[in-house]
């Protein structure tokens, strides 16, 4: 150790590299792999019902069939949207394929007066909240940036900038607490988003104000082309403890476990115990969006391994084994899916392009002189074409 003062201290010089670092890092990785935590699971991939000491659940046959129906219809809606994108009806689609259990399970744990802050992929949650599925498609078709009234179903607009909504959820939950209401708020985000500073700040604010918010992280293993190891070297649910609230990892392909764990978390929030983080361990079976090509960065075998854990097949196996679903029921769901898909398809095709003047609406609630001026000028500009086509030829071609 150097203890001399200013004068004796030599100018700093960097020493050469060593190999120490690399080998130590390797050891670390090995230790980490061993520490993989247990998932909360209530239904095995084979459809066996198992118990968990902390999370019990007891559902009626009808409720179980309801979950099945939710998942099948959601998947069908999602497939339809993908098809619509291929047909050019949508500009883009972000498929939830594989994440149905995480979304339906968590969403069915909510009360009507709970409030949901989704990312751009929560189509299953939207379904459970009662948002008409076709309304989700407006932004992907490019006719709007959010096509539903958030307050009609307590389901906020999709948020594209990752992580931002965690703070909105926290603020909303702070408001719930101020109101003395006993509802809860849930914020969805992905494994990638967990790296954003906004998510950490949401953890801080929610803990400090003991806000009734559940952070629901769907760890689908990928953030576009980046595996979860690019975001964290420990399981994401462990993040919570360092902010002073509990975190738990649940089998995200097990709809019963997702329901039970989320239910416990929202109950906790409602009864004033503050935030909780749920990490649903699941898998993005499809591409990130229809613009993405996952063959560039991940191997087919990985996807195939996850197919064996399919959330819908698993519940179906259980229902059949327990004689809770007969072929007639299963067929009725298929039929309902077809009808729904057809309705959605027709609704999307019928969606009108917005009026150009709509650009000047809704930038402000109370108006703005500049917007008025620009609206006026643009209207005149458009009118000038009408004039021209009455009279001479148009000046240019296209806009």
């Amino acid at each position: 150790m150097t203890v001399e003062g200013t004068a004796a201290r030599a100018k700093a010089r960097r020493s050469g590299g060593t190999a120490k670092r690399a080998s130590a890092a390797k050891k670390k990785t090995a230790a980490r792999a061993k520490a993989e935590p247990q998932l909360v699971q209530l239904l095995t991939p084979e459809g066996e019902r198992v118990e968990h000491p902390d999370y019990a659940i007891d559902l009626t046959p009808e409720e179980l069939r309801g979950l099945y129906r939710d998942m099948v219809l959601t998947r069908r809606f999602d497939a339809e949207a993908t098809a619509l994108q291929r047909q050019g009806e949508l500009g883009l689609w972000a498929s939830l394929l594989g994440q149905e259990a995480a979304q339906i399970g968590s969403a069915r744990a909510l009360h009507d007066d709970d409030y949901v802050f989704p990312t751009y992929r929560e189509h299953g949650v939207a379904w459970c909240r009662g948002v008409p599925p076709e309304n989700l498609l407006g932004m992907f078709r490019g006719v709007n940036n959010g096509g539903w009234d958030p307050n009609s179903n307590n389901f906020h607009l999709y948020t594209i900038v990752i992580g931002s909504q965690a703070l909105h959820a926290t603020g909303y939950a702070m408001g719930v607490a101020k109101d003395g209401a006993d509802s809860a708020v849930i914020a969805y985000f992905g494994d990638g988003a967990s790296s954003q500073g906004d998510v950490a700040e949401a953890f801080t604010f929610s803990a400090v104000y003991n806000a009734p918010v559940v952070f629901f992280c769907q760890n689908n293993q990928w953030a576009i082309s980046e595996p979860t190891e690019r975001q964290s070297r420990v399981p994401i649910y462990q993040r919570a403890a360092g902010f002073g609230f509990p975190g738990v990892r649940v089998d995200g392909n097990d709809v019963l476990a997702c329901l039970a764990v989320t239910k416990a978390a929202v109950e906790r929030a409602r009864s004033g115990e503050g935030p909780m983080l749920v990490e649903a361990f699941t898998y993005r079976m499809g591409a990130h969006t229809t613009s993405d090509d996952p063959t560039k960065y991940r191997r087919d075998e990985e996807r195939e391994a996850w197919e064996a854990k399919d959330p819908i097949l698993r519940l179906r196996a259980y229902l059949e084994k327990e004689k809770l679903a007969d072929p007639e029921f299963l067929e009725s769901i298929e039929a309902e899916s077809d009808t729904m898909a057809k309705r959605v398809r027709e609704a999307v095709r019928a969606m009108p392009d917005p009026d150009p003047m709509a650009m000047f609406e809704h930038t402000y609630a109370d108006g703005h002189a500049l917007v008025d001026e620009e609206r006026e000028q643009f209207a005149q500009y458009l009118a000038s074409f009408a004039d021209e086509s009455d009279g001479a030829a148009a000046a240019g071609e296209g806009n």
Partner: protein
Amino acid sequence: MATTKMPIAKALNTSLRKAMEEDPKVLIMGEDVGKLGGVFRITDGLQKDFGEDRVIDTPLAESGIVGTAIGLALRGYRPVVEIQFDGFVFPAYDQIVTQLAKMHARSLGKIKLPVVIRIPYAGGIGAVEHHSESPEALFAHVAGLKCVSPSNAADAYWMMQQAIESDDPVIFFEPKRRYWDKGEVDTESIPDPLHAARVARQGTDLTLAAYGPMVKTCLEAAQAAADEGKSLEVVDMRSMSPIDFDTVQRSVERTGRLVVVHEAPVFLGTGSEVAARITERCFYHLEAPVLRVGGFHAPYPPARLEDEYLPGLDRVLDAVDRALAY
């Protein structure tokens, strides 16, 4: 008439108090706004009287402050957020530009976000780095935000009332070096609209347009010019988004010359928009190009240089002379 003489700081405090009394949904949020009453004491005494639930000392995270304010607004609250100094607003810039400014449009008008963001801004107080900046152009350029800056106590009082009443997000730039300037505040008068400019001094030879801290400087310049026989009109713009171009235009149609003054850097400062648009509107009236006086294209300098950096009487009058020389 309830007219009292008070400094701008007190006018803001009084206005916040009134808003909180009248609407239980009004909240104050920020760093040190509670017991301390803010580093400039603008929220002094409010936590004592309205409680910790309505005057909220937040964690030190500006993105978190604005992001949770958005959430509170979604729940029906009307948060008034304090950013401690101009230079510390940038961690919140994403939430302001991407969420606060756009959510009303994104929801096709279904969501309203009545959030006020108070920023003590601009220089002249001899502070260290990041405590003297004028970032208003970075907000005014962004659709969905409104930006205002009062120059005197009466405006401070009324514009804060109006900003809180507004259903749109308002970035409220407080001229920190004028906090202690006193003026008459009539709490029962009928105020000008929030986004209207005002002729603060009449004149015939040239128009000076300014807002916030530079209005006083321009009024002093006009006085000095008067002593030399030049008659300058001073327009207090008051609002940077929207800008009340009509009022500036009317003035320039009378005077034929315009100098815009702000502390912010000239390059792409609000003065560039005023110059461009007024030139378009008054092309045949202008006897000289619109000149601009403002900060240089450099980080705000250390305190011992700020008197050189900031537009003062001499620099304003130099521009006036140059404009009159055309």
